[in-house]
């Protein structure tokens, strides 16, 4: 059984706002399936007493003091932007989603 369905790939593409063709869906579903199957093999050897690893170094509580450091200038900040207007990043509007979370 496939680890990821064609519908799931289509859903992920929609969440990422990627326009994926029908042919690409078939291709990506196949490729992602191979990757997920390989990763699933690791799950098979992990016993119940081994917690999932989220961090490879056993550190906690790395904090920074609440002290202001220099910012970029707006020119620097916008220098890598594909487009800018009124000192703001200009991006295609995400239609039907007027309000941010």
């Amino acid at each position, binding site marked *: 059984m496939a680890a990821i369905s064609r519908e799931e790939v289509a859903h992920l593409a929609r969440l990422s706002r990627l326009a994926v063709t029908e042919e690409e869906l078939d291709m990506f579903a196949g490729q992602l399936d191979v990757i997920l199957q390989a990763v699933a093999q690791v799950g098979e050897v992990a016993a119940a007493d081994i917690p999932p690893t989220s961090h490879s170094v056993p550190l*906690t509580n790395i904090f920074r003091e609440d002290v202001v450091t220099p910012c970029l200038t707006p020119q620097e900040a916008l220098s890598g932007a594909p487009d800018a207007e009124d000192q703001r990043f200009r991006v295609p509007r995400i239609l039907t989603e007027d309000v941010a979370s």
Partner: protein
Amino acid sequence: MTTTLPAYDEVVARYEPVIGLETHVELGTNTKMWCGCPTDFGGEPNTRVCPVCLGLPGSLPVANKAAIEAIIRIGLALNCSIAEWCRFARKNYFYPDMPKNFQISQYDEPICVDGYLDVEVGGETVRIEIERVHLEEDTGKTLHVGGATGRIHGATESLVDYNRAGIPLVEIVTKPIPGTGALAPEVARAYVTELRDVIRTLGVSDVRMEEGSLRCDVNTSLNLPGAEWGTRTETKNVNSLRSVERAVRSEMLRQASVLDAGGRITQETRHFHEDTGDTTPGRSKETATDYRYFPEPDLVPIAPDPAWVAELKAALPELPRVHRRRLQQQWGLSDLDMQSVLNAGAVELIEATVAAGTTPAAARKWWLGELSRRANESGVELAEIGATPAQVAELQGLVDAGKLNDKMARTVLEGVVDGEGSPTEIMTNRGLEVVSDTGALTVAVDEAIAANPAIADKIRSGKVAAVGALVGAVMKTTRGQADAKTLRELILERLGVQG
């Protein structure tokens, strides 16, 4: 679309509401959550940004210790347990308000859990259970440009300012609150008010709803008595305490009209409109699984040292509820009187007025009387009315000094609210001062006595109550600028009668 809404009384007789509140508080730290960019309000676009908050390749976030401390203090003040160990999580979504395509938040491991906040409503204490308090980062501001810019295809562009992106944001989520019945809107408002006061007392945020440093989403559902809870809607864009109450009420009415007509409630985000008090459907929300949360690999877990937590707990300031109880005793108020002070949002205002030298009774009289009336009329919070505690204290000082009588003081106060200046300035500018020159008053009194011989005789023969007519006559000639009590005594004195 105009649907006739059912009456509120009928709605709460037929249905039981369940509410829930999600509140976002922007912390007042000097710097952002993961980088040293300043957080001050109102800078030019994209002047408070750096590689970290712009999500540039190779940059790494580091947690702001002051923000961690602030959220632990909030959690402790809300009687929460503080997690011994927790992680941040990535919330993935594709929207340009975050430059990284994800927001760093907390998912299944919030730093504070299982607390409560007691609020007073209608003389009763309602315990609001807190499910969680977690830390995340605020988003940037998007400005949608359309036809107004003159471009034909302009409606497809957004302009983004990332100054706000990365400012520490605390989200406080209640458990569902059932059983409040008709009081649900008031409970919602009382909770947000109390929460705001707690956070302000902690000094970790300026909690100003109008500037967006306190934002509230309100969940509402209705069910038939004894039935399972209904489908809830989430109302956003609720930008004042008054709106919290209005939003719950209006959503209860709307849902009841849908249910009455045999319809079903759709689980959705709705938008509150300040002008009409209505809600309209918002964007369809992605579901939790669509956010593909996973532990944030760029930030190490937090494990607050229990000794540090204990230290923070011991150093918590006196919280508003305890503080209010102390004030109630000092001011000698009954529970009911204190409740009306609280409902009016006048506790701090009266406290500050008393601190400026006014008696508690006089301070309460102005804030709950004239000023509350004006605030209600103009639909603003009492604290935003335009009169300050110092001005009210100054006004009462003029009354106490015998320079203003009650009626004139009200007129002066109107002037203060309308921005005409300080009480003393208004008194002078408008020529409103009690005629304390007894010489001038005596002349006016004698004239009144001469003009009303019948009344004067009545008073002389012992009918002291008739003095009111002469007081009225003198008030007329002095255009109300005499102190009624002084005047009464003076008239009796001139007539040789004992008051």
